[in-house]
């Protein structure tokens, strides 16, 4: 009984809670995107469904679910249908290792049972590696989706995505190496703990690493100004041109879920995860009454806001410019950052 509770029931509930919350956050992220960009552009955004348009994401979801699921005549049916799922699932799996709050156990009153580590599903000792490898599976869905559509625009979009995501993944990987050298661990929980013990959020020790990580992250998720794969004014909708209804919405959900992944990773690796600002300064101890989850959400929300802000402000890069930025500037900079960090750590720690 105890075994079932500890290894089946509790994790299942945790997964369910994370999944439901995440789905809701993704849905309302689309809403916030429309609202925030609307306010930046002197308009109101959705206002019709519910007060201030608050029910708009639900209406959108319903609409997409009720639409006809069109599969083009020349498409490779099986792959065409699988592609959105291949893209969506990794984006959600990644959340199994992201710590939303501090470790520790909470007693549930009445049951006499203590839930261990309620704020994350699991903590594995290769967390960062796990995120990188799982999230890179998502690209496959994009490529397959574009290829299986048997249409030229999606094909071009898919080729762009493939090139873009692969090349930025390299720089992304190098940009977080600095943090790993400092923390000496791949577990996300331990990285945050190391930031408390080290007294500084890693963004202060790794500013270059953070900037590179965020730029590459924006490119990884195909968001403006790197939204080439779905550049709507050039390639109509890129790799998901031929998708309709619910399958289209899966791609859409995956994109927004990946945005949250990148924001969560930036928070965890560089901005101290669930820690309050300046965890070492005793004078700020009064901030401790704010729960860790709230700090985490606040930081993630800030990064998501940056995503939207970028989209409202900047034009789009061209394909070749994007490639040259990635390979000629970001990657060498990331590698230099790793080397400098390594040497400094060696010198300081002896």
């Amino acid at each position: 009984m105890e075994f079932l509770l500890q290894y089946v029931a509790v994790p299942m509930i945790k997964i369910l809670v994370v999944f439901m919350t995440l789905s809701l956050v993704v849905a309302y992220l689309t809403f916030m995107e429309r609202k925030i960009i609307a306010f930046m552009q002197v308009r109101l955004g959705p206002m019709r469904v519910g007060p201030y348009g608050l029910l708009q994401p639900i209406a959108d979801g319903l609409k997409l679910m009720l639409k006809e699921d069109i599969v083009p005549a020349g498409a490779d049916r099986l792959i065409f249908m699988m592609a959105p799922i291949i893209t969506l699932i990794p984006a959600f799996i990644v959340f199994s290792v992201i710590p939303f709050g501090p470790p520790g156990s909470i007693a549930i009153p009445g049951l006499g049972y203590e839930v261990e580590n309620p704020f994350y599903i699991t903590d594995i000792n290769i967390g960062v590696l796990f995120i990188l490898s799982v999230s890179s599976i998502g690209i496959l869905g994009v490529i397959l989706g574009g290829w299986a559509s048997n249409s030229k625009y999606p094909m071009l979009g898919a080729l762009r995505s493939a090139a873009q995501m692969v090349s930025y993944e390299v720089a992304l990987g190098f940009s977080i190496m600095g943090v790993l050298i400092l923390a000496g661990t791949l577990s996300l929980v331990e990285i945050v703990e190391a930031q408390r013990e080290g007294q500084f959020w890693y963004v202060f020790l790794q500013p270059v690493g953070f900037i590179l990580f965020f730029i590459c992250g924006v490119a990884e998720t195909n968001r403006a100004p790197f939204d080439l794969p779905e550049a709507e004014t050039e390639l109509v909708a890129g790799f998901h041109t031929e998708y309709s209804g619910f399958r289209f919405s899966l791609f859409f959900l995956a994109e927004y879920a990946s945005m949250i992944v990148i924001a969560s990773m930036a928070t965890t690796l560089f901005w101290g995860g669930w820690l309050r600002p300046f965890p070492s300064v005793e004078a700020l101890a009064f901030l401790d009454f704010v729960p860790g989850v709230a700090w985490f959400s606040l930081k993630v929300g800030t990064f998501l806001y940056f995503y939207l802000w970028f989209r409202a402000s900047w034009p789009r890069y061209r394909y070749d410019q994007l490639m040259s930025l990635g390979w000629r500037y970001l990657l060498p900079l990331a590698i230099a950052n790793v080397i400098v960090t390594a040497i400094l750590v060696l010198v300081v720690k002896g």
Partner: protein
Amino acid sequence: MENTLFDSSEITVSMGPQHPSTHGVLQVKLKLDGEKVIDAECVIGYLHRGVEKLGENQTYGQFVPTLDRMDYIAAVSNCLGYCEAIEKMLRVEAPPRAQYIRVILTELNRITSHLLWLGTHALDIGAMTVFLYAFREREEILKIFENYCGARLTTHVFRIGGLEYEIYDGFEDQIRAFIKDFPKKIAEYEQLLTQNRIWIGRTRGVGVLTREEAINIGVTGPCLRASGLDWDIRKSNPYACYSEFDFDVPVGEYGDTYDRYLVRMEEMRQSMRIVSQAVENIPDGPIRAKVGKIIKPPVGDVYHSIEAPKGELGYYIVSDGSTRPYRIRVRPPSFVNLQALKQMVKGHMVADVVAVIGTLDIVLGEIDR
């Protein structure tokens, strides 16, 4: 020739006629090598309505509203060119008061046309906020049109020999308020684009049109001026009362998309200068010359061209002495400017095709007529 594994294969992509950024129903057949454009062919005619032929079956006055549907973004310019051409045939001249009001409305229309260009061009390159900002100011001008003649887009604002309507109360004030406000707004657009690294990267050196090429193709308007030729019909062959105003003609240097952007931005400022001079000095007097109820130009032909927002808009009209024109031929600026597309996109990337279509500032209603 034997195909080897390393041969690059071309694909043909049909861009349009229902593509979000071909600005209407233009179809471009692109031959691509990967992302690189090898060849581009424009297919036009999807919006053909036979405007020129329609003119032969209507009286001179009846034809004017149809012309508004050519370049529907700059309907006032279309109207001005046609009315002046007929006035030239009739050897009458609109009274000074009408001339001034014509200039004010035409220049305001030039600003709306350029604002629409700016918004859609920026949107094509991915800067979506500029689009909504530009439309905000465009709305203010459209309100002035609406107050003046009741219509916003297809205004039918002038008549042969002058104007139909006297200006309304508060016309000048509304324009003054707009002029006062507008420089700040232009600065706002420029802040988002002019120094933006991505914007410069996307437009500098893209779609270069040298001076010679531009002249050979017959490109006119801001596209020609950006290529370095100081040619503006308002200066070189003044019509209406443009010679009475003080304004500069901005000229570019390299003839690339960025230069065309700068030229048009400056043109908006210059248009504002003209409007601000005109609105302070509107003379008193009649608003319409005596042309008679039935317009019967003498036998003969006339060519009259004006500087429309997109380039030289010319009307060639042949009269056989009856109440209907024998033949009307329109020289639309967009049609001629579009010829340059093929040359401008060759060797560039797919994304640049969109930028070049945007920078040419075409209107399909005018190309297909």
